[in-house]
């Protein structure tokens, strides 16, 4: 019996490892909630990872192991991906997709800028194509159809293309090829509506939640993960209230089946496949912690006083980390700074 408990502990550690691996290659594209540099994440060769496909429902599959979770939607029209995983994992990702469909990849939708979700943009897009013709091909030439279309919120392109000295932050081949600036963007592909929702300033300022309306599946990006506290990337426009708004949006979109279970299925940015009940537990946790820290901010407590009060201590055994890429201290600091009056 104790072996089972130990197994659960081990499972918990594995989740942490997955999270760290997923963020290992972010190198410069992730956080800094605090002034201090995040601790170095353990390096592991992305080519050594194992990827696994898991059927969700309808046309949709979840691909795990390549960094952030990748959503694979298949059908007569071709293949649509939500996120592209880490650079260096694309061969394995592509091989796994080929076990589901021989059709070309036509779309990749980036849920946000971080490299564990966009690192595979270049390699996977080159393996696909865009259905293009008429004026598009006339203006751009045949190359207009040479790769899959990569869609993201405008802020993703802005940040990837922003120059750091003479070089863009991210090489051009990984940039989105289509962006949107509206609260929503719609697409019809493989016999279903695909709704892209852009929450303002959440995990970053360029997040996209993707809702497959017929399959009844939502891909959340890193607004929702099961592996730890939400990473609030203040340096890239993130904010804890935006994360909560995003979680509330996911709950609002979802319809559970009997006993508040199943129904709409949720693919988190990292971690296991979920339904809306899992999102509700997470939203309750984040909201309760927000409310506690807001109360402390209202009382004029300093960041150090807030950290000393341990406002997350009841959730730390499940979501907290003392070491690694995104620690509990960093999360508390990000929440505190999100809620503090701007000076």
């Amino acid at each position: 019996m104790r072996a089972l408990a130990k197994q659960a502990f081990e499972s918990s550690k594995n989740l942490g490892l997955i999270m760290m691996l997923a963020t290992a290659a972010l190198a410069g594209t992730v956080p800094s909630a605090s002034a201090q540099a995040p601790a170095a994440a353990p390096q592991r060769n992305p080519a050594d990872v194992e990827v696994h496909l898991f059927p969700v429902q309808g046309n949709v599959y979840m691909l795990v192991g390549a960094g952030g979770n990748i959503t694979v939607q298949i059908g007569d029209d071709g293949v649509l991906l939500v996120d592209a995983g880490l650079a260096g994992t694309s061969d394995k990702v592509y091989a796994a997709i080929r076990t589901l469909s021989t059709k070309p990849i036509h779309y990749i939708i980036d849920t946000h800028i971080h490299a564990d979700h966009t690192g595979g943009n270049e390699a996977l897009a080159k393996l696909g194509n865009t259905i293009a013709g008429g004026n598009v091909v006339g203006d751009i030439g045949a190359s207009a159809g040479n790769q899959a279309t990569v869609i993201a919120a405008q802020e993703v392109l802005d940040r990837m293309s922003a120059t750091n000295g003479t070089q863009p932050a991210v090489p051009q081949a990984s940039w989105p090829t289509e962006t949107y600036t509206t609260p929503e963007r719609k697409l019809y592909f493989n016999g279903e509506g695909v709704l892209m929702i852009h929450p303002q300033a959440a995990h970053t300022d360029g997040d996209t939640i993707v809702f497959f309306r017929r399959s009844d599946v939502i891909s959340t990006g890193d607004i929702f993960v099961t592996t730890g506290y939400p990473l609030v990337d203040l340096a890239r426009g993130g904010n804890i209230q935006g994360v909560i708004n995003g979680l509330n949006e996911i709950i609002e979109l979802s319809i559970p089946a009997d006993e508040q279970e199943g129904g709409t299925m949720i693919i988190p940015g990292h971690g296991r496949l979920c339904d809306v009940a899992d999102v509700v537990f997470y939203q309750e946790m984040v909201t309760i912690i927000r409310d506690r820290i807001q109360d402390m901010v209202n009382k004029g407590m300093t960041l150090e006083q807030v950290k000393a009060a341990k406002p997350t201590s009841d959730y730390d055994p499940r979501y907290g980390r003392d070491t690694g890429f995104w620690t509990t201290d960093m999360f508390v600091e990000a929440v505190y700074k999100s809620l503090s009056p701007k000076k």
Partner: protein
Amino acid sequence: MGKVNRVKIAGGLIALLFLAALTGRPARAQQDPSGEWSPRFDEDWEERIPGPEIGDYLGIPINEAARLRGDSWDATLVELPENQCRAHGSDYGWRGPSNLSIWKEVDKASQKVIAYHTHLSAYGAEQTIWMDGRPHPPDYAPHTWAGFSTGKWEGDILVVTTTHLKENWLRRNGLPRSDLATASAHIMRHGNYLTVAATTYDPVYLTEPFMRTSDFVYNPQQAMAPWPCESVDEVDRPAGVVPAHLPGQNTFLNEFPANYGIPPEATRGGAETMYPEYQIKMKTMKTLPRPVKKVSNR
């Protein structure tokens, strides 16, 4: 041996084989739990029917994190539409005021039991206990209220191992059980009585395994009632509000120790409070003054 004797022995063997064919497989020690079962609440009635008091953590091996979750819990949380129809976790479900139905699924060709299925009247919660040796799903598979269960016989006891549980509660007063927990159930049938010993192992909120037993009586006349549940907005409140007490501000926590004359320190629970010798320690602790009961003039 004479020819007549050989004929008699052969005849006897044929008769035995015929009887064996009539009576099915050789008898086993296993006690098939299939049937209709009605709960008995002689054990822990107050917890199982009216529900536990706020802040009563006695006898539960919780850690400090679970204590703060419990202290922060506001009962109005269950009013939220997204929580109204939530089923109990399968490790807790045996404890509810639920009629229980158990039936087996048999492979037609081999007549082997593939699975036992359970149905509890509360929330219509169902659990499948796979008996065919299949592995548990990978880490990235979904978690459910029932979890994923496999069973095996240890003598005449059906031992169930459950993983992939959704978060749920240890008690209905806000003490949590995490989604990293696993559970076991020992299902024991003694004729018309069924005892289920359910144990929860939670690396997040428990410092030791937490075991509870529940009893049922065979009731072939039982008719299971349906449990339709539809969420509604019971209270008009802004979207996204999560009712909770801020740390140190739950004024209800002292009601339980005061009303029952139990030292507040003891009500905080923990592994120590599970064991009989804790009663000796309790005698050295201070209690709160009992509240004066109001007398009605009517």
